[in-house]
């Protein structure tokens, strides 16, 4: 960083029609695809779980509000315990897969 300037100050730059834009280099492209594939897969799985809770509550209340442990119902257990752990587990798997990819890139 220059003394009085920072790297993110405005610098004029042209634009180009997307059809004239050269393709991304293969390495960056591959990294982005790997990252996106992992991220989207985990997110789709996560959102299926997330939206299954209101579906369960509103359309299958007999299952959702069935007590399983004292007064704790199926949906209470999933919403306030399982899904709290799930937020961490999904992020943990993502971080581990990322570190594995990082090690592979470093090795390559």
């Amino acid at each position, binding site marked *: 960083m220059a003394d009085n300037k920072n790297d993110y100050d405005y610098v004029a730059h042209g634009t180009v029609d*997307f059809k004239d834009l050269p393709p991304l280099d293969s390495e960056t492209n591959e*990294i982005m695809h790997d990252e996106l594939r992992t991220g989207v897969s985990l997110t789709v799985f996560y959102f299926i779980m*997330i939206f299954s809770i209101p579906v369960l509550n509103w359309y299958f209340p007999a299952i959702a509000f069935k007590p399983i442990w004292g*007064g704790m119902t199926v949906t209470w257990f999933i919403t*306030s315990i399982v899904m709290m752990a799930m937020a961490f587990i999904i992020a943990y798997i993502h971080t581990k897969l990322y570190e594995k990819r990082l090690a592979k890139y470093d090795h390559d």
Partner: protein
Amino acid sequence: MGMLLEPKMILTVFLMGTIVYITYLSKKNATASDFFVGGRSFGWFTNGSAIGGDYLSAATFLGIAGLTFQLGYDGAYYAFCFSIGLTLLAIFVAGPLRRFGAFTVADFLGYRFHSRRARLAAVVVVLSISGFYAAPQLLGAAQILSMFFGTSYEFGIIFTCIVMIFYVGIGGMKGTTINQALELWIRLGAFVLMLIAAMYSGLHYDKILYAINSFSGPITGTSPYALDGSNIQFDGEAWTGTGFYFPTFWQTISMTIGLALGTIGLPHILLRFYTNPSAKAARKSALMAIGIASVFFLLAVYLGVVGRAIFLAGTASEEVMRDLVIGGNNMVIPSTAQALGGEWLLGLVIAGAFAAVFSNLSGLFITSSGALAHDLYAEFIKKDITQRERVIAGKVAILILGVLYGGLGLLVKDASIGHLVALAFTVAASTFTPIFILGIWWRRMTEKGAIAGLVIGLGVSMLLIFFPSVMPEFLQFKIPGIITVPVGFLSVIIVSLLDRQVPADVNDFMKKVHAKGSETV
């Protein structure tokens, strides 16, 4: 003299003293990097704790248990929705954002599109979201001061703003981060002590939920404080069911979308990822913050249930019963702490509540000061600004924000804290979330698309929040995420596809934020 020796006063003064000391130690901010991003020097543990401190605001610390106490299962569902966002942020944004490594959220747009207009639009959105978020935090602070120290609402707002101006203005991001990390552990410590005390008292989760579910009828000991003078009625089966707060399936889905996607667009959370030394540390920070937040939400819901069980038993002191009836949701955690552990646990909870307010507000102040000083002043007014002048401009911005946020705080005296925060999440989900996700992963996004996304997302959010009746009844939502989030995403995509003029260096940008070898910038 008596009040000065009460545990709540001793612990609150101790917290204030610690903040002053840390702020004093962190006062050396020679460059803009020091002031706005703490010299990018924080490891994953400190930054993860600070992200947790930033995210788990007073609305969370007091509000989640309060909502569970009041709404039962629907309150627990609210907490669950808040728990989703950090995970999505960790997956799609945390690492690339750190590799990009700027000073402010608006830098991302300014740099990605080489556009002053996009930067200006981002500044407006940052200030809007931060205003939405800061007002309820100030409201919470003033309520806590009023409830426990007997001060007026206006005094509470002014006092908190003065503390914030000092705290953030002198300490900058360094002082703010260390204070936030410390304050997080005070809150978590208070919750863990409450958990231990509840377990020791035999208030096991399964047992108390069973007792609540089986309860139907009047609650003993509530008549002296009820408006009609008779004991309050309670239906345990309805409380453990759904539909209390969000009466339809689609209202529930709309809230889920708004809250789940809002975190990715919260400027004060995004900014925290610039303070790590590397992208790897940024991802680990996010993971740590998710772990903390998950434990925190789990405990908050449980403590809300404990509060309800104590209330139904009717065996707590008159003071606790009175506070639970007339004190509103924000009194559930303090009253439960008092019932479980007496004055010292109550004192720790009050100190924790202040820690939550300070932690969250400091994040909002530092983020908005960056938007005013770095993005507005340095980019549009004084373009040959020196590093020292940037820091001074940041401090002046904090003073201006103190006055602005103070004014907002005075305006929302009767508003609901939890609802205002949820609306801030919706605005963020409809503006910055599409911009960051698409800006990081989609090369076809154009400057016009970004500006359209911000302007339309903000406009539609504001319209549906303040004037929901413009929509037909079946499209009116308490949290309108189901409409505003798709509108935000579609605005960016449609305008970008029509415009087609992408920045000529977009491939370099993608390489910078994704390619290997750019782990530390």
